[in-house]
């Protein structure tokens, strides 16, 4: 069980009773289950499909960073190929699948401690023989990051059976000797290749054109092991053939176990929250890897084909802020990807008549925008898709991710080499994007905010606030760079903005309208929003009907309904630009108007509700977050995990419930435990240290590994020494805004 050989993991899985499990089989829900039980390592992802295939299965191996042409509006899609480990098995001439046998029990388990997936299936065939099939899948996070798979099929009881296995060896070479059959094969695709090494151990086997046959007596088993290494621009390491499958497993287990030590979360008393956030962390980590910016995380990660693997702001605003504390190297890689795509972003800005960088709304390999130009509605009508042209807040979102990463990690090298250039180019974009609004005010016109129901609006609160943030951040970074003793960051002149340009950024930021929210009043989401026609949003929301589809985009654009958090998104990302009263007033106004058609919406409302101690709203939003992929029978996950929801859920728990904040000088907490949760524990990485936090009613315990830190809880600050546990008192009535003036 604890060995480092893959076959050791084919044993009893009952010991994993505390891990996420899916008992039984339901064809209707199978696609979602496959997604949730997928394994991935940032380089490749493999859906948790049934090892023997079947009508309900959609077994895929998805290759990160490799985009291939498609005839659809999306133009490019992530390379997805057949899972090489799926085999066709015939027992006495009948193909084995869920429909051809009587299942006694079937269970899939995600072993979060070791980042692998296991399955155990017991069944009876048409001749009354009892069988067991077990498998294990690993997407290694070590070395060349191979995909490891082992399967065993055992005749537990009954008369001997002839078994034929089709392993689809293609044109690969086959090496057959002794008790073990071995196959090697290289499959080549546009932009990537798969090196597949497979071995089989079976009594009395005989080779066939596409696999082998054997005869299993009672108690005998056959075993197939497969190691697949992807070679792609994101993974140029040589394959691990020399290491061998067991060596690759050992390397993976060592890293996975260590990673688990600093990423697990428990929410005692709330198993629903704990199960979901644990899965969220698992998938966030699975989606990412330190790849030097070769690629980034798609909106549906590597577990499905949804959104064609395109990279949206989901990554920068939802995933990266969580990864920054879970796996900083992978977070950095996502930001390096943005840096790598700067040339395209600059071209795009020029093409639109602006300076600086305009990042793609939907980015793939080069950073060129791949947003579909049009879509066909159910009634057959065609509509223009304008997000690619107008959803410019992506520029500020990227700058935000860079700044928050830098503040959290103190990764000055990254900032000098990559981050500053990104932030400066973002500021240049906004400086050229604003237009006069009368007097000393500046407007940002003709945009789409997060609420995509209302295209071509002016002075969208979120966009304006983030633009102002982006300008101020650039000025801050420029000041840091100027004061730094380090040599010039790179050879790119963009990294050294002249002083007058930096001053202009500061002035511009101060002049942008609707960018600060300290006046305790409801903010108009954009010019004219208050004048829109009211509609019964709750009726659609509670019926699960997407209002934009039901009524059509043109009708919805005239209604006072929003797709997702927009003004409240500004509160979530920039809380220091708000007073608590203003947040409360706006939450009360906008929450009923929000349709939550987007999966990005509920995590934001949940986080802000936690800050406001609004338990009813928090629970409603939490339920939506959990149900997106991890509740409701996994029905929402068929096309892949919503990676933004995963990052968003982590942020709800750590930023929202624990009230975690950070700066270069220290960390702060203003906790709040919702009903039923009697202890919240988690670990995170901050500035080279590991923080271990445990929160119970009235007390927060923290231990820091790797150095001392200033810690403030409910405004009471003190130094916590390295490796010395410290306890702080807290009161839920103290919110993050209570000590705003003393924010770290």
């Amino acid at each position, binding site marked *: 069980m604890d060995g480092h050989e893959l076959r050791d993991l084919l044993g009893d899985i009952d010991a994993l009773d505390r891990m996420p499990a899916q008992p039984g089989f339901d*064809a*209707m829900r*199978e*696609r979602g289950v496959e997604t949730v039980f997928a394994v991935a390592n940032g380089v490749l992802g493999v859906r948790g499909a049934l090892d023997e295939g079947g*009508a*309900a299965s*959609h077994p895929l191996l998805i290759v990160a960073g490799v985009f291939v042409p498609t005839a*659809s*509006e999306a133009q490019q899609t992530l390379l997805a190929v057949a899972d090489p480990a799926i085999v066709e098995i015939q027992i006495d001439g009948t193909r084995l699948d869920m*429909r*051809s*046998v*009587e299942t006694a029990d079937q269970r899939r388990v995600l072993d979060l401690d070791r980042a692998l997936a296991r399955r155990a299936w017991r069944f009876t065939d*048409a001749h009354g023989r009892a069988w067991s099939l077990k498998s294990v899948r690993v997407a290694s996070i070590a070395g060349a990051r191979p995909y490891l798979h082992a399967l065993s099929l055992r005749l537990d009881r009954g008369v001997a059976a002839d078994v034929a296995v089709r392993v689809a060896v293609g044109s690969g070479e086959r090496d057959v000797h002794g008790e073990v059959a071995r196959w090697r094969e290289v499959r080549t695709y546009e932009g990537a290749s798969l090196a597949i090494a497979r071995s089989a151990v079976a009594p009395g086997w005989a080779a066939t054109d596409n696999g082998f046959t054997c005869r299993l007596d009672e108690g005998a088993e056959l075993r197939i092991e497969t190691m697949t290494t992807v070679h792609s621009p994101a993974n140029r390491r040589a394959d691990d053939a020399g290491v061998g499958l067991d060596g690759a497993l050992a390397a993976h287990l060592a890293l996975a176990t260590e990673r688990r030590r600093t990423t697990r979360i428990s929410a005692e008393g709330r198993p629903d929250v704990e199960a979901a956030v644990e899965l969220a962390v698992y998938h966030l980590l699975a989606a990412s890897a330190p790849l030097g910016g070769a690629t980034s995380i798609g*909106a549906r990660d590597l577990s499905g*084909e*949804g*959104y064609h693997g395109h990279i949206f702001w989901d990554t920068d605003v939802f995933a990266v802020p969580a990864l920054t504390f879970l796996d900083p190297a992978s977070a950095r890689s996502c930001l390096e990807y943005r840096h790598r795509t700067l040339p395209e972003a600059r071209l795009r800005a020029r093409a639109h008549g602006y300076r600086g960088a305009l990042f793609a709304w939907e980015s793939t390999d080069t950073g060129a925008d791949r947003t*579909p130009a*049009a*879509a*066909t*509605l*159910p*009634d057959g009508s065609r*509509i223009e*898709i304008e*997000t690619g042209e107008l959803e410019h807040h992506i520029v500020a979102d990227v700058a935000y991710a860079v700044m928050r990463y830098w503040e959290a990690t103190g990764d000055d090298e990254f900032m000098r080499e990559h981050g500053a250039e990104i932030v400066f180019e973002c500021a240049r974009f906004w400086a050229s994007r604003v237009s006069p609004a009368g007097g000393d005010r500046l407007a940002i016109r003709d945009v789409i905010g997060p609420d*995509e129901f209302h295209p071509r609006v002016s002075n969208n609160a979120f966009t304006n606030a983030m633009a102002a943030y982006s300008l101020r951040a650039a000025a801050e970074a420029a000041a840091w760079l100027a004061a730094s003793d380090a040599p010039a960051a790179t050879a790119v002149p963009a990294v050294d903005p002249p002083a007058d340009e930096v001053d202009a950024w500061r002035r511009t930021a101060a002049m942008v309208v609707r960018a600060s929210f300290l006046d305790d009043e409801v903010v108009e989401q954009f010019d004219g929003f208050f004048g829109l026609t009211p509609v*019964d949003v709750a*009726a*659609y*929301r*509670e*019926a*699960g*009907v*997407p*209002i*934009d*589809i*039901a*009524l*059509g*985009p043109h009708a919805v654009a005239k209604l006072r309904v929003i797709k997702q958090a927009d003004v409240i998104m500004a509160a979530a990302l920039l809380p220091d630009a708000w007073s608590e009263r203003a947040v409360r007033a706006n939450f009360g106004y906008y929450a009923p108007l929000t349709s939550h*058609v*987007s*999966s*990005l919406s509920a995590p934001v409302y949940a986080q802000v509700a936690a800050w406001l101690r609004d338990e009813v709203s928090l629970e409603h939003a939490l339920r939506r977050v959990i*149900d*997106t992929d991890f509740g*409701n029978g996994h*029905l*929402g996950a*068929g*096309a892949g995990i*919503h990676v933004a929801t995963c990052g968003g859920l982590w942020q709800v728990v750590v930023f929202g419930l624990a009230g975690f904040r950070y700066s270069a000088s220290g960390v702060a907490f203003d906790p709040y435990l919702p009903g039923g949760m009697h202890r919240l524990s988690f670990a995170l990485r901050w500035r080279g240290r590991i923080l271990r936090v445990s929160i119970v009613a009235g007390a927060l315990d923290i231990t820091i590994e790797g150095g001392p830190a200033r810690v403030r809880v409910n405004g009471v600050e003190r130094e916590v020494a390295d490796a010395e546990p410290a306890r702080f008192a807290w009161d839920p009535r103290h919110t993050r805004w209570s000590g705003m003036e003393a924010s770290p």
Partner: protein
Amino acid sequence: MSEPARHIVLVPLDGSQPAAGQLAIGEAVARLYEAEVHVLHVSAAAMTPAEVCDRVGLPEPRPAPERVRHRAGDAARAIVDEARALGAAAIAMSSHGETGDPSAVAGHVTLAVLAATPCPVVVTRAFLDAGRQAQRIRDVRCILVPLDGTKEAARACEEAVALAARQGAQVRMLHVIPRTGGRGRAGGFPRFADHAAYELEAWREEFARISLAGVAAREDVRSDVALRVGDPADEIVSFAESEDCDLVVVAWGGRMTPHRAVIVRKLLTAAPCPLMFLLADARPGAGTA
């Protein structure tokens, strides 16, 4: 695992409709299942096969005596019991029989059979031309399945795909998104509607995959998913008309209580083609109708 042999299509006749037309419909349904037709008549008094043929007005040539059955008692219960006893592949019957109220969506016998049937029931509306209905079934080319993402709807889909495979027909799956929200159950619009407008194609594919998840791979069956926005019952009927569908396959919960089975009612009163009903699990909230 393995389905029982299905080789009989039961055709209940009460003499209210021209028997030749009903028999032709039954024979067309029998072709779908590669089955033979058995006629059933229900009446209080015992009858011989010849008396049954006379009573229901069957023209010559008449079915062989062993294919003419009689049962006494409640008509609906007798039909259901006979179908179960025979292991019938399907029942073929008219929407209204001898005692049916023309103003009702269907006769009480038909409704009672639909609510308890052990097998698919092909219903032809009594007010449509029987010959044309028989021809639609015989030459079925387009089978419509209204889908809402439920397990029951997928069962209807499975039946339709099996029929289509045998007949070389196409399966059109239709999902209707209600135009107006309501606090009731909205059905199966999958939850990944982050940008529904341009993700509709992906949604369509996903919806088809979910709906066909239980169906063994049938590359020989053409199928697609159509979307409409509006009132589901109206849209289904409208789609069947505009797309010239030959058969609509529906799984339902079997309860015709007020505010339920809206789609079944609409189909029984307005469908332009024959209907096939499957009885879904009658648990609360289940069913497509």
